[in-house]
């Protein structure tokens, strides 16, 4: 395997410090662990002296401490053209200040920009010493099943055009996906529970303030090959531990005797096995019952005692 010859965490470090220039980073997050609480700080931590971060914010109004220049996009919501013009002017200013600097232009939630304009904006801002970094919230993606598609009155409905997420995922050179670190969170048992809680917007403790999270990196090379790595990132020590993906077949613990027997899935996963082991079977309790088959009857207040019953119990 070619990808095993180099170290994934070194690659991640190089990408975060922009030593390997990459024109477009796409960061995707969910409410379970947001980019602002995670990966953006790593860009700041790994940054070298010749890096300026230009932050185009649709969300926060507070300028983060690691940022060189800050644009409040809410002032330009009427037209994306004026926003792009403003960003271009700011980039020029930063270049004038330090001609050698690499500029990382962060779009904090590109979802606010209409999908039909995203590709154009990316194209307009692409420059040799500028890297774009678009944040997208994965949970904003929703699938509405019963929506009619197709031509209506000769007008192409909007949902035919690819979404911002699809577009960016297609053109991004590096995709960084942020996931909560379920295994080190004491308040959640497993991913299933987390998913059900998050889908009802009932967030458990210790999601966004946990000091570690999972990061999936998809690195697309010039050759066309794309590499995928999972990391556990610690925000306090800034360590990136490469998580080797568990082989699904070993997880399944499949019994070879079931092979080809039926079309049903007779195998049990480790999780199912674990759940099965935890069930207390009823007959085990019955065996520990040591009165030896006696009828245990407790006389209660409302019971009437029939004195003439010849077969009555001796007590």
């Amino acid at each position, binding site marked *: 395997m070619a990808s095993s010859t180099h170290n994934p965490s070194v690659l991640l470090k190089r990408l975060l410090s922009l030593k390997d220039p990459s024109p477009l980073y796409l960061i995707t997050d969910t*409410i379970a662990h*947001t980019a602002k609480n995670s990966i*953006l700080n790593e860009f700041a931590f790994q940054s070298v002296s010749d890096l300026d971060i230009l932050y185009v914010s649709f969300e*926060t109004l507070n300028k983060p401490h690691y940022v060189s220049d800050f644009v409040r996009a809410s002032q330009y919501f009427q037209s994306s053209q004026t926003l792009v013009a403003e960003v271009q002017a700011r980039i020029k200013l930063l270049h004038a200040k330090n001609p050698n600097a690499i500029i990382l232009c962060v779009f904090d939630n590109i*979802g*606010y920009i209409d999908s039909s304009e995203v590709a154009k904006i990316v194209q307009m801002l692409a420059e040799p010493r500028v890297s774009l970094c678009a944040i997208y919230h994965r949970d904003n993606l929703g699938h*509405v099943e019963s929506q009619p598609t197709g031509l209506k009155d000769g007008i192409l409905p909007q949902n035919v055009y690819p979404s911002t997420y699809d577009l960016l995922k297609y053109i991004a050179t590096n995709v960084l996906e942020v996931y909560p670190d379920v295994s080190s969170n004491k308040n959640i048992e497993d991913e299933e529970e987390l998913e059900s809680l998050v889908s009802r*917007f009932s967030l458990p403790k210790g999601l966004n303030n946990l000091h570690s999270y999972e990061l999936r990196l998809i690195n697309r090379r010039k050759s066309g090959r794309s590499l995928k790595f999972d990391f556990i990132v610690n925000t306090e020590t800034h360590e990136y531990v490469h998580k080797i993906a568990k082989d699904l077949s070993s997880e399944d613990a499949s019994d070879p005797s079931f092979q080809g027997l039926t079309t049903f899935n007779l195998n049990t996963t480790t999780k199912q096995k674990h759940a099965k082991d935890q069930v207390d079977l009823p007959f085990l309790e019955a065996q520990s019952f040591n009165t030896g088959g006696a009828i245990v009857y407790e006389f209660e207040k409302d019971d009437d005692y029939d004195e003439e019953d010849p077969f009555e119990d001796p007590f």
Partner: protein
Amino acid sequence: MVQKQDLIVFQDFSILPNNNLKNLVLLTYSLGTSPAWLIQALLEAVIFGEALSLNERSGERAGFSNDINSNDTGITLASFVHNQDYMEKHIFNKLKVQKTKSEKELKMVDLTTSLQIEKLSLIVEKIIENSNNTKTLILEQPEILLATMSSLDANALNQQLVDPLFEAFDTVVVVSNLDFYSPFPRSSKDLQFNKFVQNVFYKSLVNLNIKPLSTGRANDVTGTLSIVKGGDSGVNTNDKSQNVVENEYLFFTQRETTKLFYR
């Protein structure tokens, strides 16, 4: 006896953020557990400096002279669900502040008549005009506009209503009802509602979520209040005093007071 606990949201024991930044707080609730007691506690936190209606502390009100003011910033309550009359009867009267003081520090904006408005900027103007330069705003259920204005989507509501208010006030508390939040959205309205709440969460420093008891009903507990960190990181990483203390409380609402217990 179970020990009652003070409501603490931030590490410096405050309930609302106390920094020189712009802050957003997301308060979510679902039907069956009204957030009225928490809204009242937030109002008190600004007006008296402490939440007096919690844990039967109203007796201590004497200690808080009406002249002494914790911070001269005041608070505005703008509601899409409660009209002026309701707010005066159920919120103002419960606060028991002197009328002169309240005129300065507590402003109420009745937005129930603004639901059919065509431009969101008119609502923003109305709130800012009536706020009398108070620095904190509680905005009750802006998501209703998604249902009343047919062409409105979540992004527009965020950009044209929440953002301008976020700029105008230091702290904005957005109160949202989660009954419209659907795990499996079936229409684009569902989707827009989910998106609105999610995107307010991404902006927020802290999320206060009120839920009914998952086990049903109990005589001595009304529901749970969970405090979790929001999607925004806050800016100054060295200032630990503004870190969110994540916690889960049980609360019990009675006629005049609400008691809090640690879970």
